[in-house]
């Protein structure tokens, strides 16, 4: 058997309870306007959920990457409008792995795009950062921005105050902040050479993993909404869930949702154990993004016209599905990366690679 351990179960239970109590249509509508939910964030911080998987000595809550993954799936299921993934799995990881203390508050992380770069220079004993970041998740609401910068002798992890950066607000399809950030010689509040395993490639893998987990959770929510609707909505004198045409679509959706959860959580486990992270994370991001495409449209189809309105809850989920699938590399990006490696290794290595421990 392979059931979650007791620590994981307790964590899941408290995360589920907290998100169920704190996230509702009102909170989501307000977040669409404000960019996030500050009160939800406070509650999450009190429960120590943002820093799961960050060692306690770095200011974290302890636990494994798979624990953090389990929490992110639940956050996705509730479309929690907070930088949970960025604070722990991305920024918190970079800081802790580089020997820095994780500051309190919500954290943003950069660079999120392949093309963005930030240069770090030493000026009279302090690190100064310069560069333009086209799209930084949550920058304008974060209390600190954690940057993986290029220093003169290698990568530097630095923590800066977003108030000292020039921020131009932008948003993803769901209205979550995805801001342009310009750093013009901003002094780092804390900085250190990037620790072991902290590099842009791994940051990108972790970013993609985080989005896979959020997508998997959001797909479960979209499926729940579609199923509830099919159980209630009456047309032609019957509940629409009694029509085989609807049943077959929901069944397909069930498969997409299940495989999304399976791949995202599996990828977290592989990464935690130091396995083939490219294979696992690329697969998870490709598969969850594929499932998001299929699932979002089936959810809307089942709902009919009501699903596309601003007052019905479905759009909070589907807008995020459409936004998150692009972030940290979409299906095509990861498919090509994976296939290029397959080509280099050759056909005879394909099966051994797929089945390597």
């Amino acid at each position, binding site marked *: 058997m392979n059931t979650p351990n007791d620590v994981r179960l307790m964590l899941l239970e408290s995360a589920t309870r907290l998100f169920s109590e704190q996230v509702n249509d009102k909170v989501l509508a307000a977040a669409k306007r404000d960019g996030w939910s500050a009160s939800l964030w406070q509650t999450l911080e009190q429960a120590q959920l943002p820093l799961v998987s960050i060692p306690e000595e770095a200011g974290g809550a302890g636990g494994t990457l798979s624990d953090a993954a389990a929490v992110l799936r639940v956050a996705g299921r509730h479309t929690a409008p907070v930088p949970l993934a960025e604070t722990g799995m991305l920024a918190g990881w970079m800081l802790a792995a580089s020997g820095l203390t994780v500051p309190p508050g919500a954290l943003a992380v950069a660079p999120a795009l392949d093309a963005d770069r930030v240069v770090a220079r030493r000026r009279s004993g302090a690190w100064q950062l310069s560069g333009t970041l086209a799209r930084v998740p949550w920058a304008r609401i974060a209390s600190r921005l954690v940057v993986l910068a290029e220093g003169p002798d290698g990568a530097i992890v630095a923590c800066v105050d977003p108030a000292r950066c020039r921020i131009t607000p932008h948003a993803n399809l769901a209205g979550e902040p995805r801001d342009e950030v310009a750093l013009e010689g901003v002094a780092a509040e804390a900085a250190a050479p990037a620790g072991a395993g902290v590099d842009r490639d791994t940051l990108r893998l972790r970013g993609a993993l985080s989005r896979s987990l959020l997508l998997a959770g959001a797909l479960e929510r979209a499926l729940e909404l579609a199923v509830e609707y099919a159980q209630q909505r009456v047309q032609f004198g019957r509940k629409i869930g009694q029509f085989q045409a609807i049943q077959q679509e929901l069944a397909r959706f*069930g*498969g997409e949702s299940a495989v999304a959860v*399976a791949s995202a959580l*599996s990828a977290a486990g592989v990464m*935690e154990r130091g396995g083939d992270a490219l294979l696992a994370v690329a697969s998870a991001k490709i598969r969850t993004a594929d499932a998001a495409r299929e699932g979002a449209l089936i959810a809307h189809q089942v709902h009919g016209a009501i699903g596309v309105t601003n007052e019905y809850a479905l759009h909070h989920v589907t807008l995020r599905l459409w936004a998150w699938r692009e972030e940290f590399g979409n299906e095509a990006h990861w498919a090509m990366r994976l*296939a290029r490696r397959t*080509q280099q290794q050759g056909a005879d290595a394909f099966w051994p690679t797929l089945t390597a421990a």
Partner: protein
Amino acid sequence: MFFENVDFSAIELPPTALKLREEVRAFLTAETAAGAFTPHLGHSEFDAGFTRRIGARGWIGMTWPRRYGGQERSYLERFVVTEEMLAVAAPCAAHWFGDRQIGPSLLRHGSDYLKERFLPAIARGECSFALGMSEPGSGSDLASVRTRAERVAGGWRVTGQKVWTSWAHKAHAFFVLCRTAPDTGNRHEGLSQLVVDLKSPGVTVRPIAFMDGRQSFNEVFLDDVFVPDELVVGEIGQGWKQVTSELALERSGPERYMTTFPLLVELIRRLGPETDARAQETVGRLTARFWSLRRMSLAIALALDPGADSEAGTARASVDLGTEAALVKDMGTFFEREIIDATRLLVELEPSAESSDRFERYLAETIVCAPLSTVRGGTTQVLRTLIARRLLGALK
């Protein structure tokens, strides 16, 4: 919803399974090098010699108790052997049914006599079984079978017709689902399972040629065939429950998503090191689909594993992953087809079954057999109805 209480992040093959994989790989490499079998895709090939060689290595019935010829190994180890066989299109039809369906059924429901008589022989690769389920009037609706067994002194007399019985012309015996009591209104009652020796008087096997001219299907006529009491599987009248109890493992294994996998390997070979973005995107996507399906399949095998302390070696009865298995089969069989179409569209050629080139032959074989996987073992539509019922509950 699905896979409740399954921890995907912890799924990992144990070192014993990895060691076993190396052994199986080395064996298959030697077989291939010696030209011991010609790999074909589409139909699972029947090769009694290959099956005996597999049996001699302890790779049939490997999860069964030792006293019945098994190795008491884990479901994950069996999983590894199965996927290694599929990866090289090894001819497994002579032991497939015995290993996957007959053995587990006999272990769970069979008498000591049946277990002692058949399990060690199946495990040695010396006894092949077929499955007598479908009938001319009974395909997806299996409970409507009309083959009847009448009580006689010392046993039963069976009359009826089975169809689509794969490899019945080469197997030694088959499992027959039949009606042993009149239909009382509850269609799932009054059904029983019998082992019928295919050499029994009154049994006639007639081939049904597949559209490519090859023969694996048969129709089997049973004309007043005597079946002694000791060949009754489980309890008379409990046939339906027995047939459906092992579905989770049957529907979720690698054979539900890997039957065209060797074509993907050959596609990668044919594409070579220099490919365009379109080919890369396709290959990467198929890789991701395979990886994700395999994780679900592994999760089911692991969850059903009875554990080392199990006496019986049968799947954990407390775990109900039947719907999840249906999901794996539904998605797996569609994935198998995606490989075919991706290949067609990336490499322009007219497929030829006679080609001496393995890639071209595989493509032809998989195209012609593509309709099979979504029909056998539960059609897509039946599976989806099952999945929807789990999601929606009983709507009134």
